[in-house]
């Protein structure tokens, strides 16, 4: 990597740290309210109804390992799983989690194990609540189809790195009238989700799920920094454009 790119990266990290500290320790953050996304509101409603009616929840975390470029989407999936498990702790039907990566599967099992410890459950069957469905793109999807076709399900969430194959899952859900929330960082996956679902999250909206699902300060501050950086990038693009038109660049 060239030293110029590394210098920019360092400046970028420093900006994030400064802005993050300002937002975290001052009261400026209280001036900003996080706009609730209609899809997340629908998801919360659907989770509530699932618990009320004793129906099941299915969460799929995508197929990306944590150590590659799509790892951040998988981490958001894990945090979403954490929040959903917390919300559905009173449910008789524990959520079922599927993943296309070994690391994600083991981390998801840890989350399920927490719930069983919290509930002081005598069973230790958290292994069957979170499992790997396949190690390749299509084998992952082929493995997700059987649990997502369960008649006892009412809500399905697909958060992580899932490609255009997500269309197969969303189509099956639509036929069964399950509520489904697709959120992927793959561009092809997003376009297919937009065509196949009413509640698809587009672009960077996937990273706002934890902030929308909980009132935790760290997620709010993270989202505020993300918004600040987006405006910063827009401003830089406009400035460069202006200087190019004027002939200074």
């Amino acid at each position: 990597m060239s030293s110029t790119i590394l210098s920019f990266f360092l400046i970028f990290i420093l900006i994030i740290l400064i802005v993050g500290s300002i937002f975290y320790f001052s009261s400026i953050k209280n001036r900003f309210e996080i706009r609730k996304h209609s899809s997340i509101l629908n998801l919360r409603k659907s989770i509530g109804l699932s618990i009320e009616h004793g129906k099941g929840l299915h969460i799929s975390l995508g197929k990306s390992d944590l150590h590659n470029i799509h790892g951040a989407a998988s981490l958001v999936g894990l945090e979403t799983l954490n929040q959903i498990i917390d919300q559905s702790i009173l449910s008789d039907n524990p959520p079922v989690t599927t993943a296309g990566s070994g690391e994600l599967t083991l981390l998801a099992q840890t989350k399920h194990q927490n719930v069983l410890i919290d509930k002081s459950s005598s069973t230790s069957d958290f292994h069957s609540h979170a499992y790997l469905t396949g190690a390749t793109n299509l084998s992952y999807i082929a493995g997700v189809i059987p649990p997502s076709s369960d008649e006892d399900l009412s809500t399905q969430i697909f958060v992580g790195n899932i490609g255009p194959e997500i269309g197969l899952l969303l189509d099956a859900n639509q036929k069964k009238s399950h509520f489904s929330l697709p959120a992927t960082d793959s561009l092809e996956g997003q376009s297919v989700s937009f065509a196949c679902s009413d509640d698809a999250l587009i672009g960077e909206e996937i990273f706002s799920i934890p902030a929308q699902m909980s009132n935790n300060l760290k997620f709010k501050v993270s989202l505020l920094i993300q918004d600040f950086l987006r405006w910063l990038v827009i401003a830089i693009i406009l400035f460069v454009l202006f200087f190019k038109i004027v002939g200074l660049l």
Partner: protein
Amino acid sequence: MKKIILVIVSSLSGLLLILGLFFPGTILDRIRIYILDWAIIVGAIALAIAIINLLSVHWNKVFTNEKRDYASPFFIVGFVTVILIGILLGPNNQFFVDLTSTTIITVEASLLAVLALTLSLASFRFFTKKQNLLAIVFGISTIIFLLLFSGILSLGENIPLIKALNNALNSLPIAGSTGILIGISLGAILTSLRIFFGFDRPYDRK
């Protein structure tokens, strides 16, 4: 105490990886490569454990669970067959390679065919269901890019106006996807930093 140790290990690993990027060719760079190698090894072990767990899930579905799944016996038979042949003949044996690749290619090709059909039907349903501005924009752009990729505009490439139009239209998806990717990258950086500073602990039991 355990929590603090986990956060220190995670943050220290992240710091060493970043420092390795900043100082290429030094000991920090070598440490970065070692850490990445370890991560790949740990990932491979995690995958092996997850596959054994998958086998146990299907085993339970066949023999103990009330909710029986028609796919489970097929999975167990397939898994045992492939693993036995692989161990007995070796992973480079031609019969083993042919058996596994033929099965995978056949199943994946069938799934892709179903996906193509599903997406065509979904696009028809999309236009009957959604009738807002976004749907109209989506529809028009689909038609324009289908025409564009068919090469219809390349016929008049010698005409400057059509050439400019072709270039402008071709740069639209690049501009759009770059915008989305910038947003995704910002989100990814902040997610990583939350873990780096120990605000998020996906490895933590509590």
